[in-house]
């Protein structure tokens, strides 16, 4: 057997790191050296750290590519490395029981990874890897061969819309900014939670996009705004920026064109509102992150009072592709109104959690069942919440809808931060709504009345309902609050904060009524509304539940049916969980 090339790729995103990726990579290096592998097989082994490929629940993921044929191992632990080296790399025999299975394939096969693709393929800490994959070619083309207006035209024609929330046409935003009279302009890359994988796996794409954008609007300076806590993202972006500077892609006289452009970091704190564009600008200016009123919009009067473009990091990642492959190519992906792909974080009750990139318009059903692998424990799908904390809750009956800006808006949801949470029949919709509102209340900046007090009152009413003391009028009050918040809040947070309530109330009115009128939580989640009872016919009197109950509410003699004292029961559900005979029922 002749081996001409060996490549070992270890996933070192945040999750890969946490699962011990660094150690795994070190051990691969160690054993390859220790066993004199390179001498024995007669070729050099290439090692690559790669970014996240989305399938984080099975980290550490390792690709072993021999002569171009790739085998992916999942859940690789340090102790497994030695055998992979010995059996597979040296011995030529892959180890089937450790290989990634069907889930991994189906998770990926339905996705369309134009921007996440390179993550997991290239070494994010090595600019040459990126350049080898045509990196910075689009920037060179834009800066040396195209006019700024030409760039804006292409971006506009591509139909690209902002990936950070509102879905405003990116080209249009750039054009407005470019049209302002001021000489000083700024461009800002908004790197949010959902962008971390991008920043870690393919940081140069963000930088290149920012550079092209800077050229197009005539900015002298760009900022990368990122939460300080995202250490790995910061580190990778910083390394990438240094390398781009060394190559002369950032700095003075870029590509000999006379165009000067610099990029700086600005760090935010761990608060949701920091991601809102005007609060973000306040934060860069050194003030407390509180949104500004609009108009004027940032593109007219933004950072330090100058015209400013703010785009999401994912939006920027699309730019090099659009310039490189053309507007037509890009607009061939997606729907009539929503072009390209979108990254979502799929979580909740699906089998495969992780980061997914889909062409715009893909039916929700396909995401849940094909990519997500269906509902864990084969339970029944109840709803999907799309768009982050202030997204809408979409019931099972509607999951044939496609995911794009228009369809989501129609059902009262948003693309938002790209969150996607799947709920099954064990989830209580009222509790879920309460959970989101709680987050939004905590994260409201507190500046404007409807959001500051409105979210609080909304939360109080939802707590009241889940506590079993809700009244029918509370639903009117909740609707009234939703109306105020949506119509009169200062920024997007307040304006969208009632989406979870509005959508869940529209689709799950019965569940609200059950809590209020019947004092029942159909999903059996709200502690105040559940009753745990022994079914005497099934109980064999084993006593397990008696021992498990922390409140001493279960009584009964061995081998005789037990009983639960409802006065003492604290609804913790311990008995329910320990009973092997399903002799305890929850109502």
């Amino acid at each position: 057997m002749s081996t001409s090339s060996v490549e070992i790729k270890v996933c070192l995103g945040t999750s890969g790191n946490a699962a011990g990726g660094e150690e795994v990579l070190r051990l691969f290096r160690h054993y390859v050296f220790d066993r004199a592998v390179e001498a024995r097989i007669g070729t050099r082994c290439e090692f690559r750290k790669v970014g996240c490929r989305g399938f984080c629940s099975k980290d550490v993921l390792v690709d072993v590519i021999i002569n171009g044929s790739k085998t992916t191992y999942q859940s690789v632990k340090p102790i497994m490395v030695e055998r992979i080296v010995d059996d597979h790399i040296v011995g030529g025999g892959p180890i089937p029981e450790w290989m990634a299975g069907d889930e991994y394939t189906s998770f990926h096969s339905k996705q369309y990874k134009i921007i996440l693709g390179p993550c997991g393929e290239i070494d994010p800490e090595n600019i040459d890897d990126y350049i080898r994959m045509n990196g910075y070619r689009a920037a060179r083309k834009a800066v040396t061969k195209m006019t700024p207006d030409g760039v804006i035209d292409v971006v506009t024609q591509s139909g690209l819309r902002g990936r950070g929330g509102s879905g405003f046409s990116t080209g249009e935003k750039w054009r407005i900014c470019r049209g302002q009279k001021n000489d000083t302009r700024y461009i800002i890359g908004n790197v949010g939670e959902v962008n971390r994988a991008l920043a870690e796996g393919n940081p140069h794409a963000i930088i290149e996009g920012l550079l092209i954008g800077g050229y197009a609007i005539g900015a002298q300076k760009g900022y990368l705004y990122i939460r300080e806590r995202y250490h790995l993202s910061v580190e990778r972006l910083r390394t990438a920026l240094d390398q781009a500077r060394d190559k002369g892609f950032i700095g003075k006289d870029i590509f000999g064109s006379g165009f000067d452009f610099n990029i700086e970091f600005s760090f935010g704190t761990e608060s949701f509102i920091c991601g809102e564009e005007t609060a973000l600008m306040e934060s860069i200016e050194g003030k407390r992150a509180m949104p500004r009123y609009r108009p004027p919009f940032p593109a007219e009067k933004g950072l330090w009072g100058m015209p400013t473009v703010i785009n999401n990091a994912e939006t920027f990642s699309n730019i090099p592709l659009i310039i490189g492959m053309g507007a037509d190519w890009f607009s061939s992906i997606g729907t009539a109104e929503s072009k390209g792909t979108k990254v979502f974080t799929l979580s909740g009750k699906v089998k495969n959690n992780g980061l997914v990139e889909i062409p715009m318009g893909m039916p929700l059903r396909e995401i849940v069942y094909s990519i997500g692998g269906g509902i864990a424990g084969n339970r029944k799908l109840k709803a999907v919440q799309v768009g982050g904390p202030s997204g809408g809750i979409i019931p099972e009956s509607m999951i044939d809808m496609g995911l794009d800006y228009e369809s989501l808006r129609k059902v009262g949801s948003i693309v938002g931060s790209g969150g996607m949470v799947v709920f099954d029949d064990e989830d209580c919709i009222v509790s879920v709504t309460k959970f989101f509102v709680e987050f939004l209340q905590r994260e409201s900046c507190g500046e404007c009345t409807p959001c500051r007090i409105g979210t609080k009152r909304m939360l109080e009413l939802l707590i009241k309902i889940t506590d079993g003391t809700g009244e029918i009028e509370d639903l009117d009050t909740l609707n009234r609050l939703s109306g105020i918040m949506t119509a009169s809040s200062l920024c997007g947070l307040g304006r969208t904060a009632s989406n979870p309530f509005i959508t869940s109330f529209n689709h799950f009115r019965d569940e609200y009524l059950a809590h209020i009128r019947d004092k029942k939580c159909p999903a059996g989640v709200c502690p105040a509304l559940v009753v745990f009872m022994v079914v005497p016919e099934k109980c064999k009197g084993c006593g397990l539940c008696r021992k498990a109950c922390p409140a001493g509410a279960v009584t009964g003699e061995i081998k005789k049916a037990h009983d639960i004292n409802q006065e003492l029961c604290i609804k913790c559900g311990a008995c329910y969980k320990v009973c092997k005979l399903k002799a305890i029922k929850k109502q």
Partner: protein
Amino acid sequence: MEKPINSISLVIDGKQISVPSGTTILDAAKQVGITIPALCYHPKVSRSGACRVCIVEVGGTLVTACTTPVSGGMEVITNSPYVENMRRDLIDLILSDHPYDCMVCQKTGECELQELAYKYSIRNPVFRGERRQYAQKDGNPFIDRDMEKCILCGRCVKICDEVQGVGAIDFAYKGFWAKVCPPFEQDLNCEFCGQCVMVCPTGALIGKNWVARGRYWNMREVESTCPYCGVGCTLSLHVKENEIVRVTAKEGRGVNDGLLCVKGRFGYQFVSSPDRLKTPLIRRRKGGDLEPATWDEALGVVASRLKRVKEQYGPDAIAGLSSARCTTEDNYLFQKFMRAAVGTNNVDHCARL
């Protein structure tokens, strides 16, 4: 250089009006006599659009009148049922987190929130729930800061930073528990100009010494000029039962246009100090004490002693010092007295000190 001003025509509640471009809806409405309620807007500070009370309807959507510039052909409705209900609900929301203690609140009668609650007749609020409650009180001697009454309009934060250049207070915390306070919630330690007190729409910021000294409508207001430095700020002295119980300044009056410093605003108590001289005093024996006397006796002594010196040593042995604190009239009369009645030019005052 001033930009050329373009005029913009629009319609507000059916009234046609032309205003310079850049004018906000709020200001434009004012010009046709329509007052839009506003809690966070204040002409002295930059706008924030925080309270949302000034919402109006433009083309079916709500915008805040204080921040939105007019545009050509705009049709603004300030009082549709939609707007009025929304406004009512916003005030209701604010009240749901406000102590209902107007009957003992010093701000009563001047409170902008009370005024709106009254206007919208919010007796039984729709919204109810937890209220912010704070145990800690600020120990500074000038300003009572009752943050339970604060509606987070931000006027104080802005005037302190933008107008006073101090920045002693800022927003802290988030969401419902957002709060205006000095760094680390220490006691306020600033210039105590009281500018924040002036702009606060509610009873959250009140002069400590005003409390329980009377209701504003039971006071007489006298406009006068500050007795301290040479700026000459115009003051309103609020008088109750022959005592000054508060000093304020009115926007649009005098060079200070509503602003004051700590001395002008909080330095008035000397007027009613028990140390004030109440009768003439005479030292009847050299080395003796000063003893009360009648005006007649005192003036008699002064006149005869001055006369004696003048007769013995000539008028230039007498000198007079007048005062930069006294009125122009007093000063005029003093020098006239020295020059005409005594006959000397030995008259001066403390201009150089």
